[in-house]
């Protein structure tokens, strides 16, 4: 690629505050963590491929499934979402960058450092091993000696800072930096879902932050938040975790819904059916998502009233979700379908998400859930919604938008090969888990006895997982090939409707030389939908924020402090605090544009 917006050495990437570059960095980092999380998954599957396998010890197995979950949720799907938010939002709303470009860069660096911090645990005594949900009081020092859980607590805390900072930035950006005429109900659905997701992030992360602080205190300062002997309640942890954790899964799926709401209309060559319903249902899902958390706790004994309330709320949330699915199908109905890779992934998403949603609704009934909870049925459910759902949707988005990012088209044949390999092997891997769960195979166990009826399905699942892993290589190959010799994408290879497609691929450093004036939803599909200004030198080149080293410096502070806390070194913790404070002042006194 010889595009000037990506040119420059390491220093230019470390000090960048350009949302497009930051988006690319999020994508690359997420990709690397996806590989790591995928290897963890494959090791899990290899261990479970046969009964009483001795390939992986129970200790290592606990670390693997904990890190697989933590990595996929926090270091892959969320950053991948961020990659999309970062690259696209300013373009979609007609802005030149986000509201706070340096804060944006900071969010990336602290995420990256947190991911490295968390994974470094493998080298320092072992990775966290109490599950991605870290239930108390397994996580107490009594039952989890050493620093594995402290790695987890501190790593997640750092990630929370990244997410909250990023979400704050996108909320201000979407509220305040829209081009003239870009009313809220004219915004692209992806922008809307980003706004909703960002609110979920700022509202949900504080709760888990408090839970993590309590756990840190219990483990390091002798408090009794989760110590039953002192009157503490282990369920308080579960409440705090799931008050965060349930909105978190909507944080993971709403951006995917946003992507689908753009891909389906573009490749049906038809406007999104029921746009207001898509938006309102997104808002409703987010709102209701805060009221269902105890459906993760149906088996702990909350009592019939609590169970019923949360059960009803959980069933209710299926309604706005269903509305979206009907709207997507209605969009395709009567459209002139472009059968390209993005649409394949979008249709794949709808199919797999419906399956995952159905198993989800089955969980919403407490009596049914008592059978299903802690079995592989749940594992099937969440992989169908998270992988079959979010990951498929994000691949649809990647195939759709990568040409805008790189300026080159991906190869269609390879894309379709990737899709079929992935779609088929995904189902081979995860569908048997419904069966396994129903027949009683528990979650989170490192092996099983032979002759319980689990052997064949596990073997099939493992075989599927190996092909699933291989399918990713097709995508990587496609991407590498495209970067080297893909045909030029041009501005709007798909004939899409939204503002980012008015710009060159990739867009110039400043995005829009003249801020457009928007007059309709789907501006490129409406007669007089948008008024674009001159792109040439009749308009002076916009002054953009200068690169800055303070974001990465500021990100180092908390990481050093966390390391100090981890190894119980007060000097190091204080050094981290000093770096943090000094960086804040350095940043505050540095003008944005120099």
């Amino acid at each position, binding site marked *: 690629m010889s595009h000037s917006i990506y040119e420059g050495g390491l220093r230019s990437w470390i000090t960048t505050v350009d949302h497009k570059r930051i988006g690319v960095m999020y994508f690359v980092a997420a990709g690397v963590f996806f590989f790591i999380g995928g290897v963890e998954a494959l090791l899990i599957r290899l261990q479970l491929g046969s009964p009483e396998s001795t390939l992986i010890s129970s200790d290592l197995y606990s670390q693997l499934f904990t890190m697989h979950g933590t990595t996929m949720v926090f270091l892959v799907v969320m950053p991948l979402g961020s990659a999309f938010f970062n690259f696209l939002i300013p373009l979609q709303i007609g802005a030149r960058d986000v509201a706070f470009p340096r804060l944006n860069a900071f969010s990336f660096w602290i995420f990256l450092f947190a991911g490295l911090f968390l994974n470094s645990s493998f080298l320092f005594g072992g990775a966290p091993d109490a599950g991605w949900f870290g239930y108390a009081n397994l996580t107490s020092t009594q039952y989890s000696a050493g620093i594995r859980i402290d790695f987890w607590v501190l790593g997640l805390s750092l990630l929370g800072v990244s997410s909250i900072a990023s979400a704050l930035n996108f909320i201000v950006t979407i509220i305040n930096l829209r081009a003239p005429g870009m009313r809220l109900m004219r915004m692209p659905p992806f922008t809307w879902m980003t706004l909703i997701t960002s609110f979920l992030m700022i509202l949900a992360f504080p709760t888990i932050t*408090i839970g993590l602080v309590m756990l840190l205190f219990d483990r390091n300062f002798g408090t009794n938040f989760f110590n039953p002997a002192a009157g503490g309640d282990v369920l308080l942890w579960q409440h705090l975790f799931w*008050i965060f954790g349930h909105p978190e899964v909507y944080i993971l799926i709403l951006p995917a819904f946003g992507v689908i709401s753009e891909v389906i209309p573009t490749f049906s060559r038809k406007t999104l059916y029921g746009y207001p319903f898509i938006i309102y249902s997104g808002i409703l899902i987010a709102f209701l998502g805060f009221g269902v958390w105890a459906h993760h706790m149906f088996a702990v004994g909350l009592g019939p009233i609590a169970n019923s309330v949360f059960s009803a709320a959980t069933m209710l949330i299926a309604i706005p979700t269903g509305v979206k699915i009907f709207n997507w199908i209605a969009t395709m109905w009567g459209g002139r379908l472009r059968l390209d890779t993005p649409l394949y992934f979008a249709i794949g998403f709808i199919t797999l998400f419906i399956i995952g949603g159905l198993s989800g609704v089955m969980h919403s009934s407490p009596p049914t859930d008592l059978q299903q909870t802690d079995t592989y049925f749940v594992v099937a459910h969440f992989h169908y919604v998270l992988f079959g759902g979010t990951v498929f949707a994000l691949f649809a988005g990647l195939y759709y938008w990568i040409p805008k990012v790189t300026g080159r088209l991906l190869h269609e044949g390879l894309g379709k090969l990737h899709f079929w390999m992935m779609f088929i092997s995904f189902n081979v891997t995860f569908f048997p888990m419904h069966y396994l769960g129903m027949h009683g195979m528990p979650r989170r166990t490192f092996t099983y006895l032979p002759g319980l009826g689990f052997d064949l399905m596990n073997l099939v699942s493992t075989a599927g997982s190996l092909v699933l892993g291989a399918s990713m290589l097709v995508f990587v190959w496609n991407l590498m090939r495209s970067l080297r010799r893909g045909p030029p994408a041009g501005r709007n290879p798909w004939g899409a409707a939204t503002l980012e497609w008015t710009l060159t691929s990739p867009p110039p450093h400043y995005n829009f030389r003249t801020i457009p004036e928007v007059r309709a939803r789907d501006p490129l599909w409406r007669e007089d939908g948008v008024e674009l200004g001159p792109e040439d030198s009749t308009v002076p080149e916009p002054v953009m924020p200068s690169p800055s080293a303070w974001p990465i410096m500021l990100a180092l502070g908390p990481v050093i402090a966390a390391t100090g806390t981890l190894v119980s070194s007060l000097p190091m913790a204080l050094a981290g605090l000093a770096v943090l404070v000094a960086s804040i002042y350095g940043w505050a006194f540095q003008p944005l544009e120099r």
Partner: protein
Amino acid sequence: MDMHPTTTGVPNRKVLMWTFIGSECMLFGTLIASYLAYRGRSVVGPYPEELVNIPFITVTTFVLLMSSLAMVLALSAVQRGDRRGTIIWLAATAVLGLIFLGGQYLEFSHFVHEGLGLSRNLFSATFYLLTGTHGAHVLIGVIWLSSLLGMELRGNLGAEKAEIVEVAGLYWHFVDVVWIVLFTVIYLLV
């Protein structure tokens, strides 16, 4: 920095601070909920009713309320271009905040002296975490305001000083408002 005028007419920093305050509502909400969940469940003493000193805390609460008045007078001075008033009232806000923190320190010392260490019981855990988090927020506010004061004294608070002081004020008032809730929940409803 606004690269073009904002869609709502409200400056970006102000929208940012209000959104951040929303997030902080959930932070303190979680802490308050946890405090309430564990209320009365300590297995050993000392218990809150034995320790709290209502008259003392009423005074510190009053101090914090007055610091909000000082803050708003500081903002008013900045908006009028009254440099002397700005300096006086920013300093007053910070000083009142420090007095409040001094009161917290005295209270904590007294509690520890009476046997309520951090790890003593559920009251100690939830009380110190909740009020400690609040106190940390006050401390950050004092540092922030002192920095603004220093910049104003050196004359380099800049052209956007009204916006910056306003945003700092929003943070400060929010921290005060949280204390209003804590005063009621922890002390008056002991």
